C-alpha cells in the first residue's frame, strides 16, 4: 500500500514513518484496542481519512485553511544569539506563530474538515494545557460546528486563560474530576462520552495516541511542520538537512509531525520528554486509550500519574509510533527536569525575545544541556520545533521566578 499514490510524501525504503502496517501497527505497537461500541466509528474515521488524504480537493481545502486562517507557512528562525552562546547552529520552527499559538491547530483543522466530510456536527476533544482545546474550539467556530472539550480540573486551575478562551469561542468545557484530574483522565472521559455520541460527533484526538487510525492520521496532519522545515532547510543549508531534529514529546504530535519530514534523511531525531512523564524513555508495554504502546505503570500494572510543570507533557504514555522509533533506534528519547525547562524558557526569552510554551522549553533544555558534548557536538546544525508560545504559562512562571 505504501507510496502507490503520487501525492504521498517520501518515506525511506524501509517504510519508517509511512503508513502503519496491517491493523494499524507500528512494529508491535498501535492497533485498535477500542471498546466494541467504538470500533465501527474508528473504521469510519479510517476510511474517510484514507479517501480524503488521497483527494486533491480535500488537500486543497486544508491547505487554504492552514494558509488563510492558521497563518502557515510558519518561519524557520535562526536563533542567532543563543546559537553563538551554545556553539551550535540552532534553528527554530515557529509553530508558536500559528493562529491559536501552537501546532495543535494543524491537526484540528484537518480533523474538523474530516468531521464535516462525515456529516458530524460536533467535535469532542480532550485537552491538557488547553492548546488542543482552544484549537478545537477555534476550528469548530470557523466551520460552524459545536465543540465539547474535556479538561482535568487540575489543568483548569493552572490554565484558566485557555478555559476562558474556549468558552469565548463557544465551546462547552467539561471539568474532569476523576483520577489525577489531568490529561490522562480527560482523555478517558472524552472516550466515554464518544461511546454515547458516535452518531453526531467526531472525537478529535489531539495527539498521536488513541486507536487506529488516530496515531497515523494525526501525524499526517502534523507533518506539515516537518515538510515545511525540510523545504526551508533546503534553501538555508548547503547540506539541505540539519544534523539534529529535536522536539518535545508528551503524546508526541509535534515531534511526530516534525520527524516525518526527516525520516528519510540522515538527521538524528531526538524526542525530549518531561522527567515525570517519560513514556518513551521509561514506559513499559501496555494498552491505554485505544492503543498498544509504552506507559508508566506500577508493579501491579496500574497506570501511574505523570507529573510535569508543562500540562501538555503530563501524560503517562507516548504515541505508538514513537515507541516503535525508539525500538528501531531511529529516534532517541531523553528527559529534562521542570527546572531545566524553566531555565530554558527564560534563556530563550532573553537571547531571542521569544517566550516559549513550557512544553517547547523542554526541547530547548536538552539542546542547551547537550550542546558541545558528545551527543550534540559544537558546530552541529539543529532544528528544534518551537511547538507553542508561552503566554499560557506566564502565571506559572510568575510564581516560580
Amino acid at each position: 500500500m505504501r507510496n502507490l499514490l503520487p501525492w504521498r510524501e517520501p518515506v525511506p525504503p524501509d517504510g519508517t514513518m509511512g503508513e502503519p502496517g496491517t491493523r494499524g501497527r507500528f512494529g508491535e505497537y498501535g492497533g485498535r484496542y477500542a471498546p466494541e461500541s467504538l470500533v465501527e466509528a474508528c473504521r469510519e474515521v479510517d476510511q474517510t481519512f484514507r479517501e480524503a488524504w488521497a483527494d486533491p480537493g480535500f488537500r486543497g481545502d486544508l491547505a487554504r485553511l492552514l494558509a488563510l486562517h492558521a497563518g502557515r507557512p510558519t518561519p524557520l528562525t535562526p536563533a542567532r544569539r543563543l546559537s553563538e552562546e551554545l556553539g551550535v547552529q540552532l534553528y527554530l520552527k515557529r509553530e508558536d506563530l500559528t493562529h491559536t499559538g501552537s501546532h495543535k491547530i494543524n491537526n484540528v483543522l484537518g480533523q474538523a474538515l474530516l468531521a464535516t466530510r462525515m456529516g458530524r456536527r460536533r467535535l469532542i476533544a480532550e485537552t491538557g494545557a488547553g492548546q488542543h482545546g482552544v484549537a478545537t474550539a477555534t476550528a469548530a467556530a470557523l466551520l460552524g460546528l459545536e465543540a465539547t472539550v474535556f479538561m482535568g480540573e487540575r489543568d483548569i486551575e493552572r490554565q484558566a486563560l485557555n478555559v476562558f478562551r474556549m468558552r469565548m469561542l463557544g465551546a462547552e468545557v467539561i471539568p474532569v474530576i476523576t483520577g489525577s484530574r489531568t490529561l490522562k483522565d480527560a482523555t478517558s472521559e472524552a472516550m466515554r462520552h464518544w461511546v454515547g455520541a458516535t452518531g453526531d460527533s467526531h472525537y478529535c484526538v489531539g495527539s498521536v495516541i488513541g486507536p487506529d487510525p488516530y496515531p497515523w492520521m494525526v501525524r499526517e496532519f502534523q507533518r506539515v511542520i516537518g515538510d515545511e522545515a525540510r523545504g526551508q532547510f533546503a534553501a538555508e543549508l548547503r547540506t539541505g538537512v540539519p544534523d539534529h531534529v529535536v522536539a518535545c514529546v508528551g503524546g508526541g504530535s509535534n515531534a511526530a509531525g516534525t520527524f516525518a519530514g526527516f525520516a528519510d534523511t540522515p538527521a538524528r531525531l531526538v524526542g525530549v520528554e518531561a522527567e515525570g512523564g517519560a513514556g518513551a524513555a521509561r514506559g513499559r508495554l501496555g494498552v491505554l486509550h485505544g492503543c498498544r504502546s509504552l506507559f508508566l505503570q506500577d508493579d501491579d500494572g496500574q497506570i501511574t500519574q505523570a507529573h510535569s510543570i508543562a500540562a501538555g507533557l503530563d501524560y503517562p504514555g507516548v504515541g505508538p509510533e514513537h515507541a516503535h522509533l525508539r525500538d528501531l533506534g531511529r529516534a532517541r528519547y531523553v528527559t529534562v527536569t521542570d527546572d531545566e525547562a524553566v531555565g530554558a524558557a527564560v534563556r530563550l526569552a532573553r537571547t531571542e525575545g521569544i517566550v516559549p510554551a513550557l512544553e517547547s522549553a523542554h526541547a530547548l533544555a536538552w539542546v542547551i544541556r547537550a550542546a558541545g558534548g558528545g551527543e550534540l557536538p559544537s558546530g552541529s546544525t539543529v532544528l528544534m520545533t518551537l511547538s507553542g508560545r508561552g503566554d499560557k504559562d506566564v502565571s506559572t512562571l510568575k510564581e516560580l521566578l
Partner: protein
Amino acid sequence: MTNSTVAAGAVERHLRARRDTGRGLLLPYVTGGITPGWTDYLRAFADAGADAIEVGLPFSDPTLDGVTIQEASDRALARGASVRRILADLAGLPDLGVPLVASTYYNLVLHDGPGAFCAALRRAGVGGLIVPDLPVHEAGELSDAATAAGVEPALLASPATPQPRLAEISRRSRGFVYAVSLMGTTGERAVLAASAAELTERIRRVTDRPVLLGFGISTPDQAREARRHADGVVVGAAVMRRVLDGAGPDDLRAFLTTLREALDQECDPPR
C-alpha cells in the same frame, strides 16, 4: 447457527445446562478487593441464585465504565487491591458451585503477558474472562493463551456492530456472548435501551451460545424485560452502588433475590 457445543468449556457448559432448563441467567458483578471481607459477597450472590459471578480486577483507567464502577475501582485500588491479591483471595475460597468470570482491562492482561495471566486465573479457580477494551480483531493473542490455560474469554457485541462482525464475535466468543445493551458506558439507567432487543435478536440469528445482556440493567423490571430478549443479564453498577453505599452481603443477597425472582417469572419452556 454455529455449532459451538464441541468447543464449549466448563463455563459455557454450565450456562447452557441452566439455560436449557428454561432458567434466565443471572451474572452479578463485584469489584475485587472493594472491602476487607469482599469475598463474602460472592457467597451471598451464589445463595441468591447467581448462575455465574463476575469479579472485576480493578484498573486505574476504566475507560468503558461509568461513575459507579470507576469509584469502586478507585476505592479498591486505594485499599491496595491488585490482580495478585484478588486471585489469592479467590484461590482460598471453598467451591461456590457457580463459575467465576474475571473482568478487567487489557493492560492488566498484558502486564505479565496473556499466558501467565490466564494461567493465574485458572489456578485461582476462575473459568471465564471479560476484557471490554479488547475487540475481536485484537483478541487472537489472548484467545490462544486462554485456550491453552482452559479459560473462556467472552467477547462483547455492541448495537453498532455490523452483522458479519457479529457472526465473527459470536463464533470466537467463549462461555457466552456479552451483549452491550446500549451505546454508552456501564451504569444504572431508568429504562432498558431499545437497542437491547434488536441486538440480541441479531446475535441469536448467528449463534446458539448463551447471550447475556449487560450495561444499565438495574431493576427487577428491567431484568424481566431483558429476559424476554436474552438468556440472562449481567448486573454490575446496581450492585456496586449499593456496596459503595455500605450495603453488606445480606443486603445484596436480598437485592439479587428480587432479580432472581423477576427472571424466574419469565422462564422459557425447557429445551
